[in-house]
């Protein structure tokens, strides 16, 4: 009988090989080298299940939805609306009506900032953190400038965790109407304690929004267990297509919110004098939506569920631990962000070598990483760096790719130092 560790290791290697075979792009060459794709946090690659679902829709079953009285339209509407059920189950929503399709997380947050934001009064506070992506900062700044709400920032600790004491202080005056915080930092990999944040926000009379763009890829989200009020995700990081994102919010909050964009599909009746709105979620989905992309998102969620978050979590936890170890051995390399709870997104600097030079030289070896400020300029200033390089992992990432990254980084350093 096979030793148990060996057996499970064989399982892991075997399933990783099967997963990689689902992603056609992973067999591409870049500059004559095997593609080593370590930029999934920016946007993940797509499995053939997603590609096929979208292509099959266009080939065999496509028409505009919700309005057509003919077979093709009805079938496409069913396929589109079935994804709403899938997303509701994926996020642990109470009801399908709580799922609003948007273009991406950015649009979902803008929807909340415009619509929920219009219900806020001057002097009320929106509270963000120091490690927000611009997507969860700029819409609130724009809201502040439009309406006179206050924008308050909760700092992070030196290791890159949310400063929970500071959060408590920021909530203590009872003026905070909304806490809008990332569930996982796209720069530091930090996973925030969403349930604790929600409890603190609610105790202070505030609603809470989590930007789950990064987290939803790596761990199961249960919006009810988190006691969230708003949760946003984006399809393209979830191995799905671009152009489709999701806003989840509690039904009663959505009901109370005015529409965001006006147009077809979001109305109940229209006359020149006035219009009335469709019920949620359609009130927030004006115009022909991203039908094909939504169906692609459904295929992506089915794909993720077929692997399961237990396997995904175990794989990524092992990869992250491995990466922190081998990258830690690269001379002059400093990992930015060492919060205790973190995922497979690792930012780093290497001596004085500029991250853009690192990225270009890695690219010449087929390795794709991100370099720059990662749409988080205030966080970069807090960290005292102008840019970092960032390697991020997906379900298809192998430990060997991380070893190759580390070895190549060591060679790059040799050029410069």
């Amino acid at each position, binding site marked *: 009988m096979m030793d148990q560790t060996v057996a499970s290791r064989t399982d892991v290697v075997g399933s990783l090989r099967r997963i990689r075979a689902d992603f056609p792009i992973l067999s591409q060459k870049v500059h*004559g080298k095997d593609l080593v794709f370590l930029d999934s946090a920016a946007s993940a690659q797509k499995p053939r299940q997603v590609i096929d679902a979208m292509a099959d829709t266009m080939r065999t079953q496509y028409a505009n939805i919700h309005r057509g009285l003919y077979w093709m339209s009805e079938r496409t509407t069913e396929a589109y609306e079935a994804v709403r059920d899938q997303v509701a189950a994926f996020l642990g929503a109470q009801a399908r009506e709580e799922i609003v399709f948007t273009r991406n997380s950015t649009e979902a947050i803008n929807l909340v900032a415009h619509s929920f934001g219009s219900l806020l009064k001057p002097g009320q506070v929106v509270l963000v953190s120091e490690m927000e992506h611009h997507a969860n900062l700029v819409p609130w700044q724009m809201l502040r400038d439009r309406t006179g709400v206050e924008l308050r920032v909760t700092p992070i600790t030196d290791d890159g965790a949310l400063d929970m004491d500071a959060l408590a202080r920021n909530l203590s005056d009872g003026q905070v109407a909304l806490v809008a915080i990332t569930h996982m930092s796209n720069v530091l990999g930090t996973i925030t304690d969403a349930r604790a944040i929600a409890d603190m926000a609610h105790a202070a009379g505030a609603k809470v929004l989590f930007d789950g763009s990064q987290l939803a890829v790596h761990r199961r989200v249960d919006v009810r267990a988190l006691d969230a009020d708003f949760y946003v995700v984006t399809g393209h990081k979830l191995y799905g297509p671009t152009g489709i994102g999701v806003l989840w919010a509690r039904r009663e909050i959505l009901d109370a919110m005015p529409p965001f964009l006006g147009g077809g599909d979001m109305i109940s009746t229209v006359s020149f004098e006035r219009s009335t709105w469709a019920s949620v979620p359609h009130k927030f989905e004006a115009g022909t939506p991203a039908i094909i992309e939504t169906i692609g998102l459904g295929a992506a969620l089915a794909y993720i569920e077929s692997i399961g978050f237990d396997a995904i979590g175990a794989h990524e936890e092992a990869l992250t631990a491995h990466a922190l170890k081998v990258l830690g051995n690269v001379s002059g390399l400093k990992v930015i962000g060492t919060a205790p709870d973190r995922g497979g997104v690792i930012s780093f600097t290497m001596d004085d070598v500029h991250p*853009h030079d690192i990225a270009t030289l890695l690219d010449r070896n087929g390795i794709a990483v991100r370099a720059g400020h990662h749409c988080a300029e205030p966080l970069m200033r807090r960290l005292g760096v102008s840019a970092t390089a960032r390697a991020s992992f997906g379900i298809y990432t192998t430990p060997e790719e991380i070893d190759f990254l580390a070895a190549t980084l060591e060679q790059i350093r040799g*050029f410069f130092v």
Partner: protein
Amino acid sequence: MAQDDLYRTVVLERARTPRYAGPLAGAQLQGEGSNPLCGDRVKLQAGVDAQGRVTALRHETRGCAICAASADLMAERVAGQDRARISQMHAELVTAVETGIAPEGLGDLSVFAPLHRHRSRIRCAMLPWSALIGMLNDDKDR
């Protein structure tokens, strides 16, 4: 690993030990350029003579190796040149990074020609030049 022809010795050397970095005593012109996308920044100081020739140029660059080397090689090449020749050099460098083919007479600046395969990095090499052209145009407008 694949040694990249972009990161040739001259680029790495000029980035590591620039020859024309720092302030210029008695400078008549000051210019600055930055790239908000990556945070790179170049500050320039120049002297000009009565004929409008750049007598000397110094740079203070915070950025990647491509940007820093470009600034240093630019400072070397433009000294003693008039605006017309500097504009011509700029145009030749643009041609080189866009096509990968360095026009004759580009000299050391031809090390940036491989940027045509790294399009996202072209702006790194061109930042010092945009700052220079901007500085000279501002001076002309005065």
